[in-house]
């Protein structure tokens, strides 16, 4: 597969598969509640419908309000495109750095929070402040977890990390176990899933993400929703491909690509199911508990780092 095609595939994969994953999670939850649930393609239909509607802009809004959806969408999609999906041979390998990834996500989040405050409604400000609280605690944890991986692979480049993992002999690494758990916790918080935030409703006073985009409509809302779905997919791909890189394609042969695509689809389906099940089992926690939750994530990441240093390097 040539490079241009691969770039296109990366973007299309994230843009197109994101609503599907979100739909899948919804469906799993619906089945667990003994409902039929919406069809899997409902996500696309909703985005299509919103795209066609008029975008209302409040009188008090500044230009930031209008730019924000585009920035959020673009930065999220760009961040996603740096992730290795099928194999370590990545067109954007030179910029596929973990710190770039975190930075791009932070940019999107920054504009999201600005947009929430821009209109000047009570809910928007509330949502923004909560989002910032969560992300300020989540970011150290995610960086720490990712550093654990990069210490093992001796690189902060995602492509090299994946390459390293694919080519090293299978080993039980305690540090990876902790990093995985930490990333799971952080991912749940960052993508606004239960128990940190409830994506299904904007009727709760404790909402975070929904509160920030409460004023949006039409294509703006569509972009915001889409960006959120891409973010979910991004975290899912990050988790499965870094920790379970099985089936990934190192060479880039057509069969290899096909196998890799099947493998990643299967892994994402499993992650989606697991997410649906946990969301059905857990209740949303109080906002005041979120810092403790994220502390736990940070601690796990730190333990991962420590066990890497103590147990894995220490035996030299």
């Amino acid at each position, binding site marked *: 597969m040539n490079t241009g095609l691969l770039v296109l595939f990366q973007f299309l994969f994230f843009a197109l598969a994101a609503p599907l994953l979100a739909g899948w999670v919804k469906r799993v939850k619906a089945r667990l509640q003994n409902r039929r649930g919406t069809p899997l393609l409902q996500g696309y239909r909703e985005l299509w419908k919103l795209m066609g509607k008029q975008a209302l802009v409040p009188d008090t809004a500044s230009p930031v309000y209008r730019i924000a959806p585009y920035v959020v969408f673009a930065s999220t999609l760009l961040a996603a495109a740096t992730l290795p999906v099928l194999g370590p041979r990545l067109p954007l390998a030179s910029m596929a750095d973990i710190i770039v990834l975190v930075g791009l996500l932070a940019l999107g989040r920054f504009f999201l929070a600005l947009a929430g405050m821009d209109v000047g409604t009570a809910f928007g400000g509330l949502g923004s402040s909560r989002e910032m609280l969560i992300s300020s605690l989540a970011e150290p944890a995610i960086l720490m977890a990712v550093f654990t991986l990069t210490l093992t692979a001796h690189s902060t480049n995602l492509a090299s990390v994946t390459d390293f993992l694919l080519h090293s002999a299978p080993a039980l690494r305690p540090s990876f176990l902790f990093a995985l758990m930490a990333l799971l916790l952080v991912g749940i918080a960052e993508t606004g899933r239960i128990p940190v935030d409830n994506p299904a409703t904007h009727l709760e006073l404790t909402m975070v993400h929904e509160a920030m985009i409460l004023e949006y409509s039409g294509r703006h809302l569509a972009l915001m929703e889409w960006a959120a779905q891409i973010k979910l997919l991004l975290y899912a791909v990050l988790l499965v491909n870094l920790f379970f890189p099985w089936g990934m394609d190192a060479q880039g042969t057509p069969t290899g690509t096909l196998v890799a695509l099947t493998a990643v689809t299967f892994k994402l389906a499993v992650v989606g199911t697991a997410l649906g099940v946990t969301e059905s089992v857990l209740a949303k926690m109080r906002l005041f508990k979120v810092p403790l939750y994220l*502390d736990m994530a940070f601690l796990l990441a730190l333990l991962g780092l420590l066990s890497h240093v103590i147990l894995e390097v220490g035996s030299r």
Partner: protein
Amino acid sequence: MTLLALPLQEQAVFVLAAMVLFTSFLLLAQTRLVTSIHTFAWQGGLVAAITALMAWSSDAPHLYLSAALTLGLKALLIPWMLHRLVRRVELDRHTESLAWPAATLLGGAGLVLFSYWVVLPIEHLELAATRNIVAISLSVVLLGMLLMVARRQIVQEVIGFMSIENGLFLGAVTTAHGMPLVVELGVAFDVLVAAILFGVFFLQIRESIESLDADRLDRLSEREPEA
């Protein structure tokens, strides 16, 4: 020698040891008493699993006995006794608000670093790879002490005490393939007696101060009130 050079059993020992450390942190962060007891039971189970793995990988049959002993004592009997006592003194719905949760956890991480620093000089010895677990077991010991200091509930203090024992046992098993059997039996006997005594004390303390709050054990101090 890196992790990869080790056989898979020893890698599994590392993973389990890391999980033991994690349970210690869970104990530090846990607010519900009953969940704490369950976490403690899991810790005991993990230590027993490590012991069994060591017995298997190093072909030391006497370690199976210690594994069984640990499982029976630390993962089943003592948690069961604690559970029963907690229900008896009606604390099974007790939750505790932590004074400084984040600071405690970070302090715990600091203790892990400290233990690593203490053990660092030993690292350079040409010895079995599992010696790294000395740092982990020392951390579990120190975290148990931190738990005892940080909590005001005497049941939590007991859990901290017992998890210290878990850490010691982990160290003994992984560094030296367990102590001589006589000593191990003696230690197990002491732990058992200690557990029973703790039970007696719960009742005595409750009888005397009508609470199991360690803060209220403050009658004896150097500043004696003028009676």
